[in-house]
């Protein structure tokens, strides 16, 4: 099983799961901090509240004692215990110096000591249960001891309840994080699965497959679009390769079999020396031609593969045009044709000088070859201009032009115009294919237009600023 079709093993192998889980754990940590704050605020706040109440109650009782003596105090304690407010938790004790309880709901005990205003926690037995109390014990002027406090049983229960709630919340949150991570992972995996399925099918040879859902506008859609574009390009290239191998098979085999036939004939015994010599010469010529075809195909393939782009540099197109026109002016002169040049030095593009010169040479060559009709000499104009964001090289001739129906097929390898059978023009049908490949390599395009009469070939390249 290939890597592309192997399922992801275990949740830990899934990036989505790990991301969700890490995010969840982070959330959990923050929650723990928040819950701790809640816990301490509730519990500690409640304790302060209790202490304040104890202080207040004891101060009130001491004041009562100062005003009305022991009887008033005893009465007040009885009232406090009977008023129904906090009667479960509030505790009072008035104990005389001999350790006897005078009033209150706490058993008298020897261990009560006056500690002034300080509230302390004390364990004691109340109603047969060990309970924790929060108390203040004060010595009164007549030698009695007043103990005021609160039974912390209720408080403890509240604390326990809060703690349990926090624990439960934490457990539920952890569960939610895990479930969330799992769902998140499922979602991501579903999106990735589309890409993986397409990749697997392409690997299996279905080159026309594309990733679905590339129009949804999210990150995955963006990725899918990029991959789909790449696949389009690969498919184009593959189609090109197939086309080339087919046409090579056809266009190279024919001359090869011609050569072979000639040579086999010459090999037969009794062939005159002159004929053998001629056969050898024909073979040499044909093979030289084949080499040219082969070189051109290689050049096109090289341009199409885009391998040359790393050598690109800013180029002045007027220099290239000047060089090519200089190369061809003697030929034009010899043919009685005219070759004129108009340049614009703002036309600059990034590219490969040799390739662009070769493309332009091809166009000029064609224009000189096909330009001119009905006895008129060819008149070829080469113009270089800057047009906003594009730099253009325009080659215009005064020939018969190319019928509009043929425009789409121009640039197909080995495709040749029907032309005039009485006036065959040498060539292999590779020139324009190579021009197209070179211009595409440079990120430009080739436009054909009718100049009535004549053909206008425009090479548009992205211009460099400046």
């Amino acid at each position, binding site marked *: 099983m290939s890597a592309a079709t192997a399922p992801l093993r275990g949740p830990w192998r899934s990036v989505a799961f790990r991301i969700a889980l890490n995010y969840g754990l982070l959330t959990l940590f923050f929650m723990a901090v928040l819950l701790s704050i809640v816990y301490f605020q509730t519990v500690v706040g409640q304790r302060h509240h209790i202490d304040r109440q104890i202080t207040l109650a004891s101060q009130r009782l001491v004041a009562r004692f100062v005003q009305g003596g022991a009887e008033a105090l005893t009465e007040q304690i009885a009232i406090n215990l009977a008023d129904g407010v906090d009667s479960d938790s509030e505790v009072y004790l008035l104990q005389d110096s001999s350790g006897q309880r005078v009033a209150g709901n706490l058993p008298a005990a020897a261990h009560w000591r006056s500690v002034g205003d300080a509230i302390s926690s004390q364990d004691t037995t109340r109603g047969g249960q060990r309970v924790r109390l929060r108390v203040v014990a004060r010595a009164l002027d007549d030698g009695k001891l007043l103990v005021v406090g609160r039974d912390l049983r209720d408080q403890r229960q509240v604390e326990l309840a809060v703690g349990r709630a926090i624990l439960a919340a934490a457990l539920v949150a952890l569960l939610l994080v895990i479930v969330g991570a799992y769902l998140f992972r499922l979602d991501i995996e579903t999106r990735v699965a589309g890409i993986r399925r397409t990749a697997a099918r392409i690997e299996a040879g279905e080159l026309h497959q594309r990733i679905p859902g590339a129009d949804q506008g999210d990150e995955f859609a963006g990725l899918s679009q990029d991959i789909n574009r790449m696949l389009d390009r690969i498919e184009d290239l593959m189609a090109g390769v197939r086309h080339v191998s087919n046409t090579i098979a056809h266009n190279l085999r024919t001359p090869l079999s011609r050569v072979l036939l000639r040579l086999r004939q010459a090999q037969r015994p009794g062939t005159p020396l002159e004929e053998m010599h001629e056969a050898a010469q024909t073979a040499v010529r044909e093979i030289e031609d084949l080499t040219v075809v082969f070189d051109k195909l290689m050049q096109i393939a090289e341009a199409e593969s885009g391998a*040359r782009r790393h050598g690109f540099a800013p180029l002045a197109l007027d220099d290239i045009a000047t060089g090519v026109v200089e190369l061809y002016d003697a030929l034009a002169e010899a043919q009685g044709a005219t070759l004129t040049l108009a340049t614009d030095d703002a036309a600059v593009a990034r590219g490969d000088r040799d390739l662009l010169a*070769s493309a332009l040479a091809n166009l000029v060559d064609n224009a000189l070859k096909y330009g001119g009709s009905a006895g008129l000499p060819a008149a070829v104009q080469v113009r270089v201009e800057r047009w906003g964001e594009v730099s253009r090289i325009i080659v215009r001739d005064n020939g018969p032009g190319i019928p509009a129906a043929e425009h789409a097929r121009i640039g197909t390898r080995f495709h040749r115009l029907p032309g005039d059978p009485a006036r065959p023009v040498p060539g292999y049908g590779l020139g324009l294919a190579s021009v197209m490949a070179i211009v595409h390599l440079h990120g430009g395009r080739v436009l054909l237009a009718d100049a009535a009469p004549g053909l206008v070939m425009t090479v548009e390249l992205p211009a460099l600023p400046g």
Partner: protein
Amino acid sequence: MWRCLIVEDDAENARYVAEGLREHGHVAVVCRDGMEGLQRAVSEAWDLIVLDRMLPNEVDGLAILSTLRNLGKKTPVLVLSALSALDERVRGLNAGGDDYLTKPFAFSELMARLEALMRRARSGPEVRELQVADLRVNLVNRSVERAGTAIALQPREFRLLAYLMTHARQVVTRTMLLESVWDYHFDPQTNVIDVQISRLRQKVDTGFALPLIHTVRGVGYLLSETGEAAAA
């Protein structure tokens, strides 16, 4: 006479080059393997080396070339390769090759290039004026005169003539002209070079009894007073 080392694994190609060189009166030694080629290239004295790029035994032509250059040896090297892409040519020349010829090739092209290489390797101090018969070319003020009459040439025509004069009595091929005079490394479809030469020929030879620019059929051109290439 040159002592030539041919490092080439294809027996037929190697034989073809070696025999051709021997016919021209040179000594040719063939190495069919990269390792041996490297050893012999480094340890013996050669006038020139013809080097194939793809060789057996894990030592390729470029490795031999860079080793040679790293050792400071300046022996002219012509790289002979089936790798014809411009990138590959650049790689070959960057590694220290003096010239690059792609297969399939004509022996005459190889010979013309080797002669140009040898000439360059031997060239002495900077030449300011060249002369063949009564044709004089001044490279400094870019003037041309024949039998005392000035000939007006366009800049490109001057470079063409200057190249032919620098390689006087040697065959130069169309590709060599395109590469050196125009600095183009592509094959123009039509024989534009032929037309350029014939225009130059009109200016240089018309009206003179002795033709200087000669066409060598199937190969290229030759500038000489006799129409014959000088023996190297």
